[in-house]
């Protein structure tokens, strides 16, 4: 018996094992269930709308806001600088380059918390970078950032900073969302170019 036959037996055996491996294992969650559950009960996965407003005012580039609502809702208004990944289309592999970027925090938001929480659990389960949820979603954003007014007599420096932060975020939000559609599109396109690509091949 020569080397070729022995080697062929080995390869065929391995091939048969591989052929019976389930189709989807490579795509399923990477984290163990206990790990994922432990992460999901932690309070540190939430950012308040005030924190998000501060990120926007400081033009912090270590996070990206991800709007998981439908494209129509996104077009009518969204938080400046967010990218739109509708949850219905979340498993499309083309989004992975945006979602799975090391050193970048993904902050998910919908109108409420439900869809963002689905998206959070899936992207955390798939072991994509750092993921967060904007507490209360866009409804909370509207309620706090867009509509709240300071009421009272004396304003403390702390409250002053808080309201100034809200006011600035409100201004950017209104300005960008009031732009004509074609200008808006350009703005979003510029955002999309940031995604990185894998390195490799002979180039």
């Amino acid at each position, binding site marked *: 018996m020569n080397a070729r036959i022995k080697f062929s037996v080995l390869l065929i*055996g391995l091939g048969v094992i591989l052929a019976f491996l389930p189709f*989807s294992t490579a795509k399923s969650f990477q*984290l163990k269930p206990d790990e994922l*559950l432990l992460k999901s009960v932690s309070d540190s996965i939430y950012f308040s709308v005030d924190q998000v407003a501060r990120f926007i005012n400081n033009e912090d580039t270590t996070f990206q806001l991800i709007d998981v609502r439908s494209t129509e809702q996104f077009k009518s208004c969204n938080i400046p600088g967010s990218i739109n990944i509708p949850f219905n289309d979340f498993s499309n592999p083309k989004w992975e380059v945006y979602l799975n970027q090391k050193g970048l925090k993904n902050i998910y938001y*919908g109108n409420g918390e439900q869809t963002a929480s689905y998206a959070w659990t899936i992207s955390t*389960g798939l072991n994509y970078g750092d993921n967060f949820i904007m507490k209360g979603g866009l409804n909370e954003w509207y309620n706090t950032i867009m509509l709240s007014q300071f009421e009272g007599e004396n304003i403390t420096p702390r409250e002053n900073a808080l309201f100034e932060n809200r006011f600035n975020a409100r201004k950017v939000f209104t*300005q960008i969302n009031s732009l004509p559609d074609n200008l808006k599109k350009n703005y979003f396109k510029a955002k999309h170019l940031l995604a990185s690509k894998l390195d490799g091949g002979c180039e």
Partner: protein
Amino acid sequence: MEQLKSLGYIFLFLVIIMVLVIVRSINPNLFKQDPGKAIEATQNNSNSITWAQLKALNDHYLLINLGSGGKFDSVKVKNSMNISIENLLDKINRTILNESKDEIILYSGDESTTAKAWVILNQLGYKKLFILAPEENPEAFIYIFQPDTTARLENDSL
């Protein structure tokens, strides 16, 4: 004889790989589902059950409150049991979930907690798993954005 021996090593190697593969395939503490399935199931809120639908089930369901710390949280529905979110995957609770032949329905006072628990259990392969829909759709936008037509973007902010 000599030849059979070397084939023996090859079979030994194949058997080891096969055993490892089988052990991993039947390990209950691993996710093996396609996340796309979870996304599909949430389309049009088809993973949630309304009060009317709940009544129609005639008590053939397992209603679970996810309130933490072993206590029911702000919302409590009749005929439900508490499984705290942090203990969701404990052996005893897994057994309860595994043995249920009826619809498993999750709810809590916090829509985010319910959603996360739903995805985790869905990805562990539980079928007939639903969320008890709150009175109001949590994903409705309750405000209307009023564009400010006088607003102009300052050049430097683009």
